[in-house]
């Protein structure tokens, strides 16, 4: 698939921008702070309904404006769909597909699929486990949009259950029963939604791991090999069929019973996919805390390239976005990445300096400067 047209209004620094795009490689060149990343961020937002840089929508709206609008035309297997998003912080966002309103923004997920690699991705390796859980869940949603619902149902049940644990725990300490009688109900719902999420993540990691290993060996052949593994807070996952939803649900339910006292004590849910970790190892040691800067970069890049290969294998080649990454890589890694990117149906690259981008990716070049995007020779 590819993005044929991007139009934004009041998005980040852009009062207005309008960009015709083609399959193949497009490079956006411009000095720091000219708004290159803002443009590719808008594209990523259409694909995931979230920014790769910020957790809330407010910074996405141009200072002084009330709402931002992002419009894209996406071509997939010869069919073109337009997706329009209206981002209004503090209110529900609105979405339109081919000019028709859809019930919820979530309904546009799946129309555009992107894999975006950006400097922020260093946090995938060095950051908290939450970063890696988000990485997995975002990828799950890209593969199957229905997981957006599973994920938000799970988060809602989790918040409700934590609230109950707090009040029921306090009531217990005061010698009364409180609403503890409803805990089992919430356990059941947490286990039901949690099992779907957990089982899907287990499947995902199984499929992703070899692709990440291969991608890393490709970009950093001289380095020790890497691996990824899912470590769950849930005990007793079925070893033979780890992603069988019913078995996972039973295991999660059993784990909840086990930690009940500790949960009431602390007022938080202690087991479930929200406490799990995607372990990254380099050679024999965990990547976090051991890997060098360059190794962390290559690892983060491999997680994205592995995702890209996985989505490609699913059918419907995603749009590859490389934000400001070439400057960070040495010559060999640059050309290795350029090789993968040049084969993509569409790749969008941003760079401050044209010389950082390898030759094979310089087909179509735009200059971004002073609030204008213009075709460069």
């Amino acid at each position: 698939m590819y993005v044929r047209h991007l139009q934004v209004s009041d998005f980040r620094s852009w009062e207005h921008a309008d960009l015709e795009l083609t399959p193949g490689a497009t490079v956006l060149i411009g000095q720091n702070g000219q708004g290159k990343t803002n443009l590719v961020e808008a594209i990523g937002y259409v694909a995931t309904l979230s920014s790769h840089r910020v957790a809330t929508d407010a910074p996405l709206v141009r200072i002084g404006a009330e709402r931002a609008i992002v419009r894209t035309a996406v071509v997939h297997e010869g069919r073109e769909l337009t997706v329009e998003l209206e981002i209004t912080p503090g209110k529900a966002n609105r979405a339109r597909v081919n000019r028709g309103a859809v019930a919820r923004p979530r309904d546009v997920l799946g129309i555009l699929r992107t894999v975006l690699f950006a400097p922020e991705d260093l946090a995938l390796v060095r950051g908290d486990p939450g970063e890696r859980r988000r990485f997995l869940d975002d990828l799950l949603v890209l593969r199957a949009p229905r997981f957006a619902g599973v994920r938000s149902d799970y988060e809602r049940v989790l918040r409700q259950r934590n609230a109950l644990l707090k009040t029921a725990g306090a009531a217990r300490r005061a010698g009364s029963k409180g609403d503890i009688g409803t805990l089992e109900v919430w356990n059941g719902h947490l286990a039901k939604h949690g099992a779907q999420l957990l089982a899907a993540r287990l499947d995902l990691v199984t499929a992703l791991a070899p692709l990440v290993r291969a991608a890393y060996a490709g970009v950093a052949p001289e380095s020790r090999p890497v691996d990824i593994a899912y470590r769950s807070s849930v005990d007793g996952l079925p070893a033979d069929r780890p992603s069988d939803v019913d078995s996972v649900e039973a295991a999660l339910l059993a784990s909840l019973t086990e930690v009940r006292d500790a949960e009431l004590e602390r007022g938080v849910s202690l087991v479930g996919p929200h406490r799990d970790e995607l372990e990254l190892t380099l050679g024999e040691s965990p990547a976090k805390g051991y890997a060098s800067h360059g190794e962390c970069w290559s690892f983060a890049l491999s997680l994205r390239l592995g995702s890209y290969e996985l989505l490609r294998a699913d059918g419907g080649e995603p749009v590859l976005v490389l934000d400001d990454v070439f400057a960070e890589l040495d010559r060999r890694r640059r050309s290795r990445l350029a090789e993968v990117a040049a084969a993509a149906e569409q790749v969008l690259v941003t760079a401050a300096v044209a010389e950082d981008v390898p030759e094979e990716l310089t087909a179509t070049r735009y200059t971004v400067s002073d609030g204008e995007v213009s075709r460069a020779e």
Partner: protein
Amino acid sequence: MYEGPVQDLIEELGRLPGVGPKSAQRIAFHLLGSDPADVARLQDALQRVKDGVVFCDVCGNVSEQERCRICRDARRDPASVCVVEEPKDVLAIERTREFKGRYHVLGGALDPLSGIGPDQLRIRELLTRIGEQEVTEVIIATDPNTEGEATATYLVRMLRDFPGLTVTRLASGLPMGGDLEFADELTLGRAFSGRRTV
């Protein structure tokens, strides 16, 4: 802490369901800055609702008498009771014309984040009602969202031990994550006629 009447108002508003301390403060300051006429209208509406509207003794629906119109209607089957969260859900189901029984309005759903547990809902009244009257079917029509589903599960557990009682839940097909009242009549009607035993 604010002084005097403003703090009193914030505290009163904070007692309302679904209104946290932050919202209470926002509403209070909004009212403080509103037109006296707007405030008077609100005051008047509050007064009239207290004077003129009561809750049905039997089902908890809003009513003008001790018993609501549906509970008084001899043509409505007392053996079949549909449990909903809010009076507005009664209206939504009535519009489908699928249901000829009676209702029980819980007054909300399990919602620990808002401090709502079984004791804040009319669940005890429901159990008493089933124990005392000839109820043979309970249809659980709570909202198809997290809180509504949890409430449904809780009710199923509480109703399990009544001999000869069939408990059903609306068939799926209702937009998940939504409110019952927002489902269109056709979808809701279909969910009703396709209800299944739980």
